[in-house]
Structures are given as C-alpha cells and as structure tokens.
C-alpha cells in the first residue's frame, strides 16, 4: 500500500559539509557548537532520508523534542558534548526557522549537563519542554524542562528531574538537587532483577498554559507502565503533586500482541477535540546492537483515558482506548527514492516525538510532524573500522509528516 509521507528535507543538510557553521552562540563549555572546529567531520550512515540537521559521526543526536512557538521552533535532544565520549551527555537545543518551505535548525546550544554529584551525575537525556508560568527561588521562568538523569553511565535506574529557563535556549537552571520522580527498583520489585531503565521518557503537556502540567513518563519496573502525573509547578519550591495515573494501553497492537506499552512515547494534547495523541516505539525486538525499536507508531485516544475508571461490575467487552493514526514509520517509510544508495531505509527507528506548540498542544488537526531517531547497526562496514563503538555515536534525527 502506498504510504503518504511527505519527507521534510531539512535545510540543515547544507550544514553537513560545514559541521561548525557559524553561529552567534557558543556552548557553555566554551566550545563552538557542533564540536571542536579542529575536529574532522565524519559523515554518518545514511540508508534513507536526510537528517533534520547534520552533525559529525561521533556525536549522538537522539531523543528529539520539538516545540513550535510562532515562527520559531526549538528542537531539544540528547547529545554528547565531546566527540566519541558517551560520558559527556547533555541536553542541547537547536533553534529552527522556517524559510523556503522548510525548517532549518541552527547550531546546538547546551542546556544542561550531568551534575557534579547526585542522582543525575552521570547522564542526562530525554528532555521535554513546555511553556508556562513557573517560579523558582523567587524568580519567574517561562519554560519548564523535564529530563531523565542517572548516576550510572549506562543510564540505568534513571530518575526524572526538572529545570527551568526564561528562554528555550537558556540559561537552564536545575530545580533542586533531588529528582521529581525518584525510581527505586525495590519499591516495585521483589524478585531480584538488577537492571532497570527506571523512570524515563518524560513528556510535558501544559494543563492551563500556566503552572499546571501533565508529566507523562514511563516507569520500567517489573510491569512497565506509562503514567500521567498531574503537577502544579507554579511554585517549583513547593510542587503540588496531584494524581499519578496509569495510562491504559488497550487498542495498541504490535507484532501480534495486544496492549503493549507506550514505549518511548511522546504526547500531544488536541485541546479542541480533547484528544491525546501519542507516538511510540514499535517492534522493539532487535537482538543485535543497537537494541532499539524498528518502527514508530502514532496513536490517539480520548483525553478521558486519564480520568475514566470503570467502576462497578464489568459491563461487556473492555473499553478500547487507542487507535492508530496514519501509517507506521518503518524502514520503507524512510526510503529516499531519489537516491539509489538510500532505497532500503533505516532498520533502527526509535525515540519519536510529535512537534507541538509551546504548551504541548496539537499544532494542526489532520497532520502531525513526527521526528524520530535512527542509528547505524553495530558492524556496519561504512563505519570507521578503527572504532568498534562508532555505531554508538551515529544517531540522527529525521522528520516525516503523518496525515490523518
């Protein structure tokens, strides 16, 4: 069946040839964005469509999150600040501008890095940002970031914390020294498993365009679960915690199974239709590195999913909440038909996000722009032979439009 994808050819591909294109900003470690200017640009592995921006192999670009505020976009993502050094996690942001029918993303600005000590001392990743009205330490802020952090280099046993800024490109200030969502594996497990991703994949949606937010996230205890946490972050020194609600999963199908998790999900609220859109990772069955998903699904459910409790004795068949929206983004969908070297598409497609407005709301009914991550496979011959771990630094972010 023909798929109706419109490939966004991000203008940033022009930057591929000049990894350190001039930008007025510098990273907070003082280096030019995009890596040291003395570094050699190494092209990543392309099996399909272009990335929305290019950065040298050696830098992973993953976990995108995009808000569009007027004519400006802010693309937050996870990136290592030192080439081929995974211990230098950061949350970076690139400013996007629309021109000539396409979005072009500028150079990265580092928002946050791991703390000197504490729960996020080894890794920061998977950030999501929402606009609102927040105060912290007596100062007003307009942007709230939720991010995953870990004191382990492998990002395991992660917690979720907050940061605030007056503008999307900084300066970002971490909220407190403790996480908002603290994951404790023993809290939910008595059978002795030792490796958990933890509390991950935060996704923020504003409830009132002010201080109240939904924090969607995934908790990787024995029964992995997606939650929506109602929070009043107006005063970040005294966060008011409301209900933490399971997001039911009926209607999601994947590989012949029903009701799988909303893996790696990002959420957008259609306030007019009162519908929740989600984009999730599918086919999470890869057995060779990188062990990530093979496709991305977009779904929707009534916002009632957050508040409905089937009380009393069950009446009839269980309610089906989710239905798929548009086509799945899989390898075929990522083919670039105009380039004979890119007709196979990507085999690793994961970590998706839906472009929303600054409050996490749907931009336009009928179409969704989904950004997602791809990664080269371990052992790909196009990767440098002298770097066995090169695939770990090959992630790119791409974009496709889903229509419905």
């Amino acid at each position: 069946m023909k798929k109706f994808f419109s490939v966004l050819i991000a203008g940033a591909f022009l930057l591929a040839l000049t990894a350190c294109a001039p930008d007025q900003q510098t990273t907070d470690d003082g280096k030019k964005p995009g890596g040291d200017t003395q570094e050699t640009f190494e092209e990543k592995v392309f099996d399909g469509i272009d990335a929305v921006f290019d950065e040298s192999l050696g830098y992973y670009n993953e976990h995108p999150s995009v808000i569009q505020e007027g004519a400006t976009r802010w693309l937050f993502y996870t990136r290592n600040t030192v080439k081929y050094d995974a211990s230098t996690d950061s949350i970076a942001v690139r400013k996007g501008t629309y021109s000539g029918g396409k979005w072009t993303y500028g150079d990265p600005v580092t928002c946050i890095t791991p703390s000197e000590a504490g729960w996020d001392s080894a890794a920061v990743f998977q950030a999501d940002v929402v606009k609102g009205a927040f105060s912290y330490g007596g100062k007003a802020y307009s942007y709230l970031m939720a991010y995953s952090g870990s004191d382990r280099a492998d990002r395991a046993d992660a917690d979720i914390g907050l940061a605030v800024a007056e503008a999307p490109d900084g300066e970002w200030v971490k909220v407190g020294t403790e996480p908002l969502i603290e994951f404790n594996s023993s809290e939910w497990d008595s059978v002795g498993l030792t490796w958990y991703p933890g509390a991950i994949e935060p996704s923020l949606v504003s409830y009132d365009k002010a201080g109240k937010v939904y924090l969607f996230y995934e908790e990787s205890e024995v029964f992995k679960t997606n939650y929506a946490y109602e929070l009043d972050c107006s005063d970040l020194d005294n966060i008011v915690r409301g209900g933490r609600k399971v997001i039911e999963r009926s209607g999601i199908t994947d590989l012949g199974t029903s009701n799988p998790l909303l893996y790696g999900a990002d959420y957008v609220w259609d306030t007019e239709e009162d519908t929740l859109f989600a984009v999730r990772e599918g086919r999470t069955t890869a057995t060779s590195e990188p062990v990530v998903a093979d496709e991305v699904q977009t779904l929707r459910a009534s916002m009632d999913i957050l508040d409905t409790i089937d009380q009393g004795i069950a009446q009839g068949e269980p309610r089906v909440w989710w239905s798929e929206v548009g086509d799945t983004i899989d390898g075929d969908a990522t083919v670039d038909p105009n380039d004979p070297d890119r007709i196979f598409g990507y085999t690793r497609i994961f970590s998706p996000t839906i472009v929303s407005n600054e409050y996490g709301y749907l931009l336009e009914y009928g179409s969704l722009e989904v950004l997602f991550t791809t990664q080269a496979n371990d052992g790909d011959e196009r990767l440098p032979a002298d770097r066995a771990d090169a695939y770990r630094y090959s992630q790119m972010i791409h974009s496709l439009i889903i229509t419905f």
Partner: protein
Amino acid sequence: MKAKVISVALASVVLAAAGVAYGAIGVSAAEAYPLVYEATGKLEDDQTLACTLSEETAVTGNAITLKVFMKNTYHYSLPVTISVTSRGQKYEWSKTAGFEVGYAYASPDASEATVSTRLQWNRAGTLELPYMFYGEVVLPFAELNAGAGAQIDSVSKIEIEMTAAVRSNFASGDTWINDGVCMYLFGVSCAIVENGDIVQTEELADFTQMQPDALELSAKTGKVVGGVRKASAEDFNVFEAFVAHYNAPCETKGDMKIIESVSYDEEAFADVSSERTAAELIGKFYGSGQIARGSIVDGVDGTALAYTLDSSDYDGGKNSYAGLHFNFGRRAATDWSGAKGIAVYVENTADYLISFALEIFQYNQKTGLLEQYNLNDEAQKYKTLYAYNVETGEEFSYHTQTFMRVPANFKGWIRIPFSQYAAPAWSMASDYGNEGVLDFDANPVVKISITRLFNPNQDTTVILDDIALYYSDFGVGSLFDTDKPSIRACIEQGSVPAGA
C-alpha cells in the same frame, strides 16, 4: 476495641484459641447452656454426632428441627448430613440441589422475629450450615431421600454427620490446614410445618439440659478429632456477642461500608474477656496451603490483621500459596448490591514490594455453588488498582497482575473496582461450575480469601485493617479534574447510600 496482641501461627490458630481459658462452668447456669462441638485439628474423615434418645419417642409432626449456632467453619459453611432413626430404620436427608428452609434468630434469646432463610443443598448431597447461622434447620419428613414419604411417628436417634474439609464440596478442600469447626447445639424438636411455617414444636432433645456425654462423637474412619463440651458462661457470652454482632449493621466510613474491620464490636463483646475476644478474632481466619502466621495488632481503626510468611515455615511438599480465609461476621456484609468496588487498608512493612490476592466468593443462588473471583484474568492481563497513601497524601493508579502489588512502605487504602475482577479460567471448568458473572443484586458474597505466593513474599508482613465496599465514583487526586472526588475526599467526606 484494642485487643491484646496475640501472635498465632494460623496452622494452629484454633488450637491456640482453644488454649485460652474459657472460664469456669457455673453449676446451675451451665445447665441451661448448649453443648459445644469443636474440632480444631485436621479431620481425617467425616465425623458424626449422635444423640440416642432414652427411648423410642413418638413424634406428632411432619418434620424435625435442629437448633444450632455455627460459630466456626473451615469454609463459608459446614456441610452436614442429618438423619433420624425410627424403629431401627435410619432415614437421611440428602439432596444435590435446591434449598431447605431455615429460621435464623435475630437475637440470642430468640425473642426477636425470626428470619426465614434458605439453606443450600450442595451438589455433594449435604446441607450447608452457614457461618454465623443461629436458628432452626427445618427438615420435613416428606423430603427424606431414603423412605421418602415414610410416616415417621417415632424417633430413637438423631445424627449429624459433619463433612471434613478434604471431602467437602469445595475446591481445594484438601489444602485446608485445619477443619476448624465450632458448633453450638441447642436441641432437636419435632414440628408441624405448614406452608413452610413452623406452627407447632415438641422437644425431642434439649441439649441445654444434657451433659456432653449425651452426644457420641465418632469418626467415619481414623481417629476422632475434637470433642463435645458443655458451654461455659464465657462460651455463652461469646455466642451472645456473635449473634448481636452478626445482626448489627455494618459500620461506615465516608463512602465505604466496612465488611470486615478485623475487630469486634466493643458493646457486643463487653462481657467477653479481651483475651477471648482476641482469640475469637484470630480464630475466624482459617488457613490453607503454606503456613501463614496471623496475629492481631493495633491498627489505624481498632485492631488489624498482621499476615506474615516466615521462610522457616516453607513446606516444599505443599503448593506455593498460603491462604487466609474468612467469612463475614455481619449479615449486612454479604450484601454487595450497589457497591462499585472493594477497598482495603494495607500497610507494607517491607522496603520492597509485596503482594497478595483479595479473592472474593459469590454464592451463586441459581447453581448453589460458591464462585471465586480474583485478578487472574487471561483476557485482561493487566488490572488497574487505585491507591491513596495516607502518609504522603499521594494518590495513584497502577497496574498489577493476578495479585495486588503493594509498593514498599505503603500505608493507605487500595481500591479495586469490581470491573477488575474476573473468574479465573480454571474455575470455569465443570468441576467447579463457576458461571463467571458477578451479580450482586442476585447473589450474596460470603467469603474472602487473602492469598499470597510464598516465595516472593517470604519473611514479609502485610497488615490489613478495614476491608470495605465503596459506593462512589472517584478520581485519582483532584488537582485538575474536580468532577469526581479524590479517594481521600471519598473517605473523609463521602457517604454510603441509604439501604446499602
């Protein structure tokens, strides 16, 4: 009521209870007390109580009635086979379906109006005497299965054969750790019954005027377990307290009707010692499978049950579950119509997750079978529970499967909508006969089992206090959605509908 803390291994819970001093038998007053049959151990087979009359006694009615109080059973009811001997011929009542008439007294002295009640014949052909039944069992001669229609004009012997758990109509009876039966016997009469009403009675045997040796206890095979004694003054006080407790309405808390508070009404038990009260409290729980240690501890609201699995108790020869079971001590607790779900106050004293199952048993009035429902559902793997942590104030929902999972150090209420309950697949087999449809308008719920998988929960204690039915739609927290009250608001400000 703050009962003293007692710690009793449920394997021997009734034995421990029996160890409590029951008080001296008053010489004169004791003469008016009933006889008490009590078996606290594991029966090898059915046992029979036989009362041989001093002579062949003429009866003028068309039925006999048996007046009993069923204080403890190893299950919702004790299955019995009642027979009479007339002129050397033994006649027995036995049916495999339908109901028998019973009259339950609403007060200990039977002064208040009796309640016509239906006593179930089960498919094993025995009559079920329900937990807390106090009244008359009516057995018309016309319904005798042997010699039906026989003109019984005299009786020389009355026998009550009590079914051992291992041979009962109930599933998994062989895993019961003890049979745990205690029945007060008041007497047998012949009666004239017309249109289901007792219009005249004539005493055949008045057990309140007899000594224990008037009842001969024998075992079908194997040794006799338990015995017959004359009720003591305290036994009688206990009886009175139970009858008062049973007939009192359930307490309420917010939008919840408390169906088990793990404590006894102070007023009803005013004449019972605290030690005996505590023993009776723990004695109502009976165990199956692996040994569960139950004890009564101070709770948030009176006393609570501490349910411990001790690794030293593990028996590799048994199945992997431990079960604590109890019947409802109040009549009103069996009426679940209009309720939306079950709520339980739980404390997990471990700093890691523990789990247990809160299994409910509906008495299907159509089939006469007890039906088990729990969260073990092939069709809907994940079940959603709703929790309110009273220490942190947090409210949250979470998934679980088969068992209720309780997070580390959790203290608070967990709510389970009935929509989450289902009949386990195995129970739908014809051997068990579960129809799989909860219908609280038609059927009472009579029993709850608290089941724990032993290995993952060993050396942990779960504290259970009030178990309740809730009647309100609620939300999880109320920060955003104010249409529905939070769990906390339901507990603090809600109400139970009139008549619930």
